[in-house]
């Protein structure tokens, strides 16, 4: 049975790239615990031999002709960017100072 601690919530938030405040850690720890306790009921079903379903409609690869078709222009692609420079997306630094 799950028992989610504040530390575990902090870890999940880090994995999910969510900055959380100290107050939020308390709130989410309580709520996630209740939710996980309630969904853990799926474990009551005996399903060892049952195949998993990832998708309701069984589909294999769908192929199409390899034809050129118009895509977005550079201007359209950059239109929603939070920052752009020289016709490119401008992003914050990726590497640390020490790297």
């Amino acid at each position, binding site marked *: 049975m799950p028992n*989610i601690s504040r530390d575990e*919530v902090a870890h*999940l*938030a*880090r*994995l*999910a*790239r*969510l*900055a*959380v405040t100290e107050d*939020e850690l308390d*709130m*989410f720890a309580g*709520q*996630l615990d*209740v*939710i*996980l306790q*309630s*969904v*853990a*009921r*799926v*474990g*009551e*079903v005996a*399903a060892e031999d*049952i*195949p*998993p*379903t*990832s*998708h*309701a*409609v069984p*589909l294999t690869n*769908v192929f*199409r002709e390899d034809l050129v078709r118009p895509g*977005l222009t550079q201007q*359209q*692609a950059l*239109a*929603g*960017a*939070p*920052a752009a420079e020289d016709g490119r*997306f401008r*992003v*914050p*630094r*990726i*590497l*640390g*100072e020490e790297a």
Partner: protein
Amino acid sequence: MSSELTHLTAAELAAKIQAKEVSSVEVTQAHLDRIGAIDGTVNAFLHVDTDRALSAARAVDEDVAAGREPASPLAGVPLALKDVFTMAGAPTTCGSKILDGWSPPYDATVTRKLLESGIVILGKTNMDEFAMGSSTENSAYGVTRNPWDLERVPGGSGGGSSAALAAFEAPLAIGTDTGGSIRQPASVTGTVGVKPTYGGVSRYGLVAFSSSLDQGGPCARTVLDAALLHEVIGGYDPLDSTSIDAPVPPVVAAAREGMTGDLSGVRIGVVKEFAGEWYQAGVTAAFERAVTALRDLGADVVEVSCPHFDYALPAYYLIAPSEASSNLARFDAMRYGLRVGDENGNSAEQVMALTRAAGFGAEVKRRIMIGTYALSSGYYDAYYGQAQKVRTLISQDFENAFNGVDVLVSPTSPTTAFRIGERVDDPVAMYRADLCTIPANLAGTPAMSVPAGLSDEDGLPVGLQVMAPALQEQRMYRVAAAYEAARDAAWGGALINRVPELEVAR
């Protein structure tokens, strides 16, 4: 005149426009006026596209004047589009701050089909953030109010679309249904909502929440209107790799057949598991009256057991958050949407975390973390893996049931509309609103909600859910249309006309 126009059905409006009794511009203007007068109170719309709506209406009127064939049976009729479908030149927010002000550079396939059919898109409707919720209280842009009682929720996530219909702001709307987001709002607003077979309506341009469950579909005030809209938006789309390459089921013909009021020979199963402690007495009573009405129409009604349906809710709240945690990783503050904290030498990772913290609301964060947990090594088998197995068992329950009956019925939601604020701090209580709707999402089968009268204790609408096998939508449309005709005959008019008059802003 204008209030008469807003109370007509889509089928009636389309006929009047083609007969030149009224122009599409007049119809569109009447709905825009209605929105202007009451939407300050209802808050169904996040964006009203006045100029383009009127110009689309003018184009239809020119076709009519020139004697050209209408582009579709709904040409000139206004519609409210859920703000989770992209439409070039209008904002798409999904009810989230993280997409505030984002204007997508392309139309969703559903949007394109609507525009090509001469349907007039009035604007974009409010929703729970990224369609996660059952009340629209999770919208970053304020709650939408239920026209039946302004202190109550209009359901969710498509509460903007359902409220727009019930408030006579639009005769047609588009919703999306991942766990009930079309059907539950329809249920609590006395309107009709349809979740088609998974893959029956293109997901191209539908901002993804849970890709194996998300399904767009039609919303309206009558079964026939929903069927007409279903045939406009349905069909194969090469841009959606999960789209089904098969003809749209003949739902309009089925609705018309149902309206004749004969269900003899139709076998209907009542799902035994959908009753008990979580069900409001007035909902159960209204549902039982509906079942009696189906019997009176000649249907053969039997009780059916679907033993794993009880596990649909927990399986859903593992599968949907897992897929959401992956899908919402795209909101990374780099190519579009909000960016916060790009200063003081913050790294991309820090900017990402700060942006997502500021841009997402509490429910979205909860679900991302639940999904992250369920997919992490050590927990995967017990949670996500087991939920996928339960999903198989639910599909098998449907298959077994449909061996004996043509359609299944149940209440759409266990309660009528709840009060704003009542379940905000109790996520598990909120999730129970989708108790009856989730199995169809997990199995990919079609289901719809049709109003089933009012609950005795609070006078609020109750929904009858009708479920059918994959690609057999015509069965449920026929049953729903027959029930609707019998209900209106018994009540002496359409149920939706009992919605209270709203105060009009001066």
